[in-house]
């Protein structure tokens, strides 16, 4: 354990110094006494009496001294072992609980993953970066300033002020299981529209119908959401995302014992223009699911088809970055920085989402209408999920992107295709993305 600004448990710190001092002091006391008696024999009427005392003190005194020291050592070791076992047990309990609940700390600012955040002493603000059971204390420890701090998940540790071990910014995760979902896509594909519509759905419908309590992690997130969603509902444009390294959008979703903290990462699309930019996105190390957004109008042949109509419609804002570039940047980043092999499939759920399907007749080509139609007419298509995949596959195929479809299907072992329109409460298809993705991430979110 690293040095902590706290006082070590007596039996792991001071006890051994005390033992050494006690032993040496008692031995000197014995020899001093013996010498005194020996000196007194000089000129005494009965010198042999003092000699006798001196010898007795030496011989029997040393024997008793040895016995006492041995007893002291054995007793101390015994107590140390017992305390060691106690703190190991509590440490194991605490670590096991976190492991079982999949709890760790993810920084919304610098994305660093840590076991626990750095906790601050409420009295002197000293930083305790390993606030768990150990030589400093079992259930609690005493800070250098004298304040007692809890060291386990069940006696109030998570309520202490916390900060990121890497960037020092504040952590408000309350030791909750993080669920990290990066949103991937080129500039203007509709990531920001999608994220706020998705959060609106989770907050207003998903949580309500399934009995979850929705709560933003802090007022920054709440204000950000409120202002963006009201812009969205007024039908205005959201401001362009400029942050390559976004602060995560965080909220808690709680039901009985299950509590999770969501992290949505909505980076500026420019971040995907080169793998270099993605190096800092450390959340790819621990993400739970991906949302890959595709703007149908970024596909040249689709753009060409609707070109004349698009020029009159300013609200669609077609993305101009080729789809494959974003896909390649993402995969290269995963392979280079997170040791995912070229031949390895990603088993975490990936939602492939076509945006802007409210435009023109897309609803009939890749939207729900098209999927329903295929479900009815095609014998081989059994479920609506398969139907959605089929229409998207056909769409990509008809637009010279079959190779990309194959790559996506192979690389993402657990993927599903969706077509959405993101406009807050009037969105289409967002609910299906949320239900599928959350259900795949944790079965407690599955339809009940």
């Amino acid at each position, binding site marked *: 354990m690293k040095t902590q600004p706290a006082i070590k448990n007596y039996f792991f710190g001071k006890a051994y110094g*005390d033992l050494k001092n006690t032993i040496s002091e008692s031995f000197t006391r014995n020899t001093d*006494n013996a010498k005194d008696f020996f000196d007194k024999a000089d000129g005494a009427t009965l010198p042999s009496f003092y000699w*006798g*005392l001196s010898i007795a*003190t030496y011989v029997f005194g040393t024997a008793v001294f040895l016995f006492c020291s041995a007893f002291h050592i054995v007793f101390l070791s015994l107590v140390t072992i017992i305390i060691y076992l106690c703190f190991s047990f509590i440490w194991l309990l605490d670590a096991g609980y976190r492991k079982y609940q999949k709890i760790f700390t993810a920084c919304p600012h610098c994305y660093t993953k840590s076991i626990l955040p750095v906790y601050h002493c409420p009295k002197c603000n000293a930083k305790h970066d390993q606030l768990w059971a150990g030589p400093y204390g079992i259930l609690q420890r*005493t800070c250098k300033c004298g304040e007692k701090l809890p060291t386990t998940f069940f006696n109030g540790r998570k309520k202490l002020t916390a900060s990121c071990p890497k960037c020092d910014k504040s952590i408000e995760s309350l030791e909750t299981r993080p669920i990290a979902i990066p949103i991937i896509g080129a500039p203007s594909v509709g990531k920001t529209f999608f994220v706020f519509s998705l959060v609106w759905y989770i907050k207003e419908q998903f949580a309500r119908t399934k009995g979850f309590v929705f709560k933003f992690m802090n007022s920054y997130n709440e204000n950000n959401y409120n202002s963006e969603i009201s812009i969205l509902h007024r039908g205005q444009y959201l401001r362009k995302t400029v942050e390559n390294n976004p602060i995560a959008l965080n909220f808690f979703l709680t039901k009985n014992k299950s509590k999770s903290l969501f992290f949505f990462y909505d980076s500026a699309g420019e971040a995907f223009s080169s793998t270099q930019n993605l190096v800092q996105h450390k959340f790819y190390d621990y993400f739970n699911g991906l949302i890959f957004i595709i703007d149908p109008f970024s596909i040249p042949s689709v753009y060409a088809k609707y070109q004349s109509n698009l020029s009159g419609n300013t609200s669609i804002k077609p993305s101009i970055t080729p789809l494959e570039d974003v896909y390649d940047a993402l995969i290269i980043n995963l392979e280079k920085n997170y040791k995912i092999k070229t031949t390895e499939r990603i088993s975490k759920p990936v939602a492939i989402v076509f945006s802007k399907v409210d435009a023109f007749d897309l609803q009939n080509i890749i939207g729900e209408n098209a999927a329903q139609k295929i479900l009815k007419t095609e014998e081989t298509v059994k479920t609506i999920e398969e139907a959605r995949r089929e229409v998207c596959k056909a769409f990509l195929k008809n637009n010279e992107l079959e190779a990309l479809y194959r790559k996506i299907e192979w690389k993402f072992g657990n993927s599903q295709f969706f077509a959405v329109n993101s406009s807050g409460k009037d969105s289409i298809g967002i609910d299906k993305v949320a239900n599928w993705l959350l259900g795949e991430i944790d079965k407690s979110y599955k339809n009940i």
Partner: protein
Amino acid sequence: MPQLIGYILLIAAYIFVAGVAMSIGAVFGCCIALYNYCCAFFNNVKPEKI
């Protein structure tokens, strides 16, 4: 003969006195050492001051 008995008694008396002296010495030595250990213990074993 009585002389021999006298000697034996004398030796026995010596041994007895020596034994008693030894025992007293032992008890004394032990007590002093125990007292010293206790003093040393209470002088040194204290919880850390803040």
